């Protein structure tokens, strides 16, 4: 994975730093899991059940997910990056441009290995966070709680739609490298908190 793709965590980096006494409530959150591997799909859904998520949509393909996203509100999307045909990157790229109420739903992209041919897609798909496998329960919960407090604005440009990739206030999860050389990095430029559109 090249340096240009962030945020990404890899084995040995970005180790979860969860406080066991932290309280959270996902009981009313609707979470959609998209994975072409039936076993991984069920496993992730069971893990979410352990986290207290009651409503879990399980989709075996990007097409199934597309249909559901058009008709059901979703609070968090967990997508396997590598799927045959329309992959996870395609799905999120479509979602961000869909104009649906779900268009800016937080997205965790689960990735094992990113083929060289898909590096640009991975970088520009618009996911909030790319989580590297192996996907343990601890890592998944850590990233869910991180993305729940992700206060970054969303950018919509002709070439990119998704979270502002310049970390300023929140920063990436504990142990995950951020782009310190980016002049827009945290604290260097103070953008308006109001947002809006600019030309």
């Amino acid at each position, binding site marked *: 994975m090249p340096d240009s793709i962030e945020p990404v965590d890899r084995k040995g980096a970005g180790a979860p730093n969860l406080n*066991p006494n932290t309280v959270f409530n996902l009981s009313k959150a609707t979470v959609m899991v998209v994975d072409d591997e039936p076993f991984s799909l069920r496993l992730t859904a069971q893990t979410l059940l352990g986290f207290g998520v009651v409503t879990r949509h399980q989709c075996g393909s990007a097409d199934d997910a597309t249909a559901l996203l058009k008709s059901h509100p979703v609070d968090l999307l967990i997508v396997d990056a590598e799927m045959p045909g329309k992959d996870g990157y395609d799905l999120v790229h479509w979602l961000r441009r869909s104009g649906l109420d779900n268009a800016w739903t937080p997205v965790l992209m689960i990735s094992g290995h990113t083929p060289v041919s898909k590096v640009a897609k991975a970088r520009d798909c618009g996911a909030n966070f790319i989580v590297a496998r192996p996907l343990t329960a601890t890592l998944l919960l850590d990233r869910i709680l991180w993305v729940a407090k992700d206060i970054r604005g969303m950018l919509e440009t002709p070439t990119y739609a998704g979270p502002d990739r310049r970390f300023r206030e929140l920063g990436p999860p504990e142990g995950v490298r951020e782009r310190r050389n980016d002049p827009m990095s945290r604290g260097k430029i103070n953008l308006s908190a109001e947002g809006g559109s600019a030309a």
Partner: protein
Amino acid sequence: MSVNWIMRRSRLSKLVNQPGGVTVGKALAEAARHTEEFRVEAMAVVAAALDELDGVVAAPQAGEGRQAWLERIYFLATRISDTAGPFGYEDLCAAALSLCELADRQQRASALDLPPLKVHAAALRLLMSGDQPPAARKAVLAGLSQVVDRMPKPAA
């Protein structure tokens, strides 16, 4: 170039802080309880993938079938890493991801170098057995890394 900047707090961020809920410790314990029943099935999936991988590697395809053959190896490697990873088989997962990288490089280079693929398949078997001490497993992974590095990484 027009840029729309949208500031919108997600519903998830509001829900997660609602009264009630569970502690992280309890949630992880519950998740472990819910997923542990999958362990035996996971290992069966991995074993089946290793069997298929052995068969595929033993029958290399030339010509037009080569890319599909490498794609199948890549797919089986991802299946192994995806399935074994959540259950703590980190070395097995790392070796499978190494095979992903190798298969991807060979696909991109339109090259076929069979011995490194065979080495990976054998290493996955070895790591699956769990008989080796940590130092030996680490050495296996280091060896796989060297094998992959012999093939230049293609440009994106």
